[in-house]
């Protein structure tokens, strides 16, 4: 069946408003798009259409930092403050820590510091009140704010905005034409809007604040441009036309393991490089999400294979399970694991190790003991509530070690959480972010 028919079918099955997919395999690009970009306008998705690619942007920001290393302007193991004297977070936090999400300060801060070119500087200043989650380098905890700091560092050292550096040093040399960093650029293309909630309504705020742009709040790409970026890594840093974008050393460094991610590997990798998620089944890549839009991106170095898929509403995990993962298996022959599912009741565990309350800037969990597992109550903060999250209580059964998995599937998938245990007691609930016990 053609990619187009498979996408049509998957979209129908999962109720997703619209999606685009691009696959590089066997030396050629195959693309498909289906559904609508915006349910209100009814404009149809095409392979040219741009979607918000969310946190896949972090790999672009990481590449800009590696270019600074190549130019001798940054040493990854120097403190961030050596380059950004105004960086207000205490502690020996290095550039490498930020690239590998181990800086240890609150990462989910989405302060809107305006539309102006000074928004990153203002965001960095805002971090003076960021709480410490762990010691620098001690733990992986997904850190959006750290990538904003990296974007500010790029802007400062290049003497321009993060957007202009990205345009001049990556998008243009790569030949990525279907790309937009501002609304006034995206409006020139067919551009996707996010849809949220049970009615899959268009999310009223099309774009998140520019102050989070280097972490992924603004960039829009057609799936083929993520494939193009991925192929540059496969080509050791060369663009399609032979232009050198990154050194071979930078490409290698970005794929080198920096830190392990606590927990059960699924959509999230179990290890992180410099920017890249490193999947033990043989790929690297990144995913991204903005309100109502999602992107999946994997590069398989052994198979000259890249896949990128974006969608603009519910059913994204279903599209991954039914379309993206099977395509990777077919094209690469790799044994790509399914997302985790609850197994047979395993070893005994002591709920008292885990019960309590854990909190981050955007949400908190209340953990109580339950028959066969734990009962987790998610308490969304203002930002998540605004995106439609409500207080929910779910049963998680024991998975392995200090990891638990939701008993009920959502969107066909089971959520996992892992506890980081210190001296016989859970110090953190880890769901990609480390939420300290409070």
């Amino acid at each position, binding site marked *: 069946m053609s990619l187009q028919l498979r996408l049509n079918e998957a979209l129908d099955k999962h109720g997703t408003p619209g999606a685009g997919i691009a696959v590089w395999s066997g030396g050629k690009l195959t693309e498909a798009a289906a559904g609508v970009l915006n349910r209100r306008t009814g404009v149809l998705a095409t392979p040219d259409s741009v979607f918000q690619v969310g946190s896949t942007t972090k790999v672009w920001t990481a590449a800009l930092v590696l270019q600074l290393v190549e130019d001798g302007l940054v040493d990854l193991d120097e403190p961030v403050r050596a380059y950004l004297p105004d960086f207000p977070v205490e502690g020996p936090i290095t550039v490498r820590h930020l690239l590998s999400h181990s800086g240890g300060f609150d990462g989910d801060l989405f302060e809107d510091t305006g*539309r102006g070119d000074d928004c990153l500087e203002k965001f960095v200043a805002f971090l003076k009140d960021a709480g410490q989650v762990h010691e620098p380098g001690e733990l992986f905890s997904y850190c959006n704010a750290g990538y904003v700091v990296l974007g500010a560092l790029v802007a400062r050292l290049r003497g321009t905005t993060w957007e202009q550096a990205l345009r001049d040093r990556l998008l243009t040399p790569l030949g990525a034409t279907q790309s937009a960093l501002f609304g006034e650029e995206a*409006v020139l293309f067919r551009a996707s809007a996010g849809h949220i909630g049970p009615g899959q309504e268009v999310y009223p705020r099309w774009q998140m604040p520019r102050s989070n742009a280097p972490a992924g709040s603004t960039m829009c790409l057609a799936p083929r441009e993520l494939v193009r970026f991925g192929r540059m890594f496969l080509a050791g840093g060369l663009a399609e036309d032979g232009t050198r974008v990154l050194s071979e050393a930078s490409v290698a460094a970005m794929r080198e393991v920096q830190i392990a991610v606590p927990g059960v590997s699924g959509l999230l990798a179990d290890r992180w490089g410099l920017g890249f998620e490193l999947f033990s089944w043989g790929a690297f890549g990144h995913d991204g999400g903005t309100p109502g839009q999602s992107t999946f991106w994997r590069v398989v170095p052994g198979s000259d294979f890249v896949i990128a898929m974006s969608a603009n509403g519910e059913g994204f995990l279903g599209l991954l399970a039914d379309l993206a993962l099977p395509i990777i298996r077919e094209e690469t022959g790799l044994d790509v694991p399914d997302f985790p599912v609850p197994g047979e009741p395993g070893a005994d565990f002591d709920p008292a190790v885990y019960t309590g309350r854990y909190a981050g800037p955007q949400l908190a969990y209340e953990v109580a003991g339950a028959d066969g597992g734990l009962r987790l109550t998610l308490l969304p903060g203002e930002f998540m509530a605004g995106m439609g999250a409500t207080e929910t209580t779910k049963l998680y059964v024991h998975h392995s070690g200090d990891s638990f998995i939701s008993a009920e599937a959502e969107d066909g998938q089971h959520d996992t959480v892992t506890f980081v245990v210190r001296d016989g007691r859970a110090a953190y609930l880890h769901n990609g972010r480390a939420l300290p016990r409070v």
Partner: protein
Amino acid sequence: MAAAMGHRLAELIEQYEVPGAALAYWHRGELHEFAAGVLNRDTGVEVTTDSLFQIGSVTKVWTATQLMILAEQGRLTLDTPVIELLPEFKVADPEVTRQVTVRHLLSHTSGIDGDLFLDTGRGDDCVERYLEACATLAQNHPLGATQSYCNSGFIIAGRIVERLTGQVWDQALREQILDPLGLTHTWTLPEDVIRFRAATGHVEGGATTPVWGLMRSCGPAGLINARPADVVAFGRSHLEGRLLKDPALMWEPQVAIPDPHALGSHWGVGWILDEWSGHKVVSHGGNTIGQHAMLWVVPDTGTVVAVSANGGHSGAFTHAVATELFAELDGLVVRPRLAPPAEPVRIDPARYTGVYERVGARITITDGGGELTLRMEATGALAALQEPQELALVPVDDVTFVARRPGDPDWLSAVFYELPDGSPYLHLGVRATPKKESA
């Protein structure tokens, strides 16, 4: 008419090489909406009646309305000096700095250089920073002496709105006009516009513009995006007194336009005034990067028409739409575009030749053996970007001339005139340019 207009709009966009257009009109208590063509030739997305177009300088009437709302609230009068409202306000001439009033700004009579297009960033401080840059603006003519189209004056006016409301211009516009009128398809920032079907401009030759819109600092002078039905609703509000107790005050003539053939005979407060078949017409147009819009209101008949187009011979197109539509709806004869007279007119070339110059523009009139040639060139920052243009001037009477750009269906008009003090001026493109030297 209504059904026929749908077909007619499609024919007219073809005739005038317009990629896409949308039309809305209010007539005898009913709204009619039409759309034709594509929003963007690259994407091929079709125009719908809900599509947003850049309405450009039609925005100036909205900004003027904001100031009149504040005037009715007793916060200012038309004769309040700008410096009383914005103590930091400054232009190059200290007397103008002290004396220029809100009325001067809203009727394009301040004489302040109006064509400063300065990018002061995407931030909420962009209008404030623009005002700072006005400190060096020179005069095209003495304060109040004539009319010369002034974008900068409307940005200064926008800053007055910001100061008095304590809000950025965009937000004040929302609270003063958009929300009270319930306008759901009117937005100023691209991240809002993109949630709707939105037009892209097309340049000569039909390609899409590389840049979608103007810099944000131009907001109060021209950054509204709206569907035509919302523009019509705004026009109606001036007939029905929904925003202002006395909207007709804005139709009082403030100044005669020296060249009455281009846009209208007089400028009111924000509005351009004219008369068709003995009926007052108030209107405004707008041009942005490859997009054009028009709004006409006829108070006597209550008819309101708004039309937008995204390229091609868009000015001739909207004029053709108005001509057909107003004849049909109200039996009005739209003022035809000026064209060369049937019988050639004899003139004395020496009376006109010379160099006319204002900030950013030099116009040279030369005599080529009894026929006048107009040479327009940008000076200053834009000099390198714009090719000088030379056009033959055809006399219509002893002060009025027309010229036509190659390939254009319509003629431009130009009027030679004198200020009350006797100084010679050329009025071209609704701007006044003083004569610097005779040939």
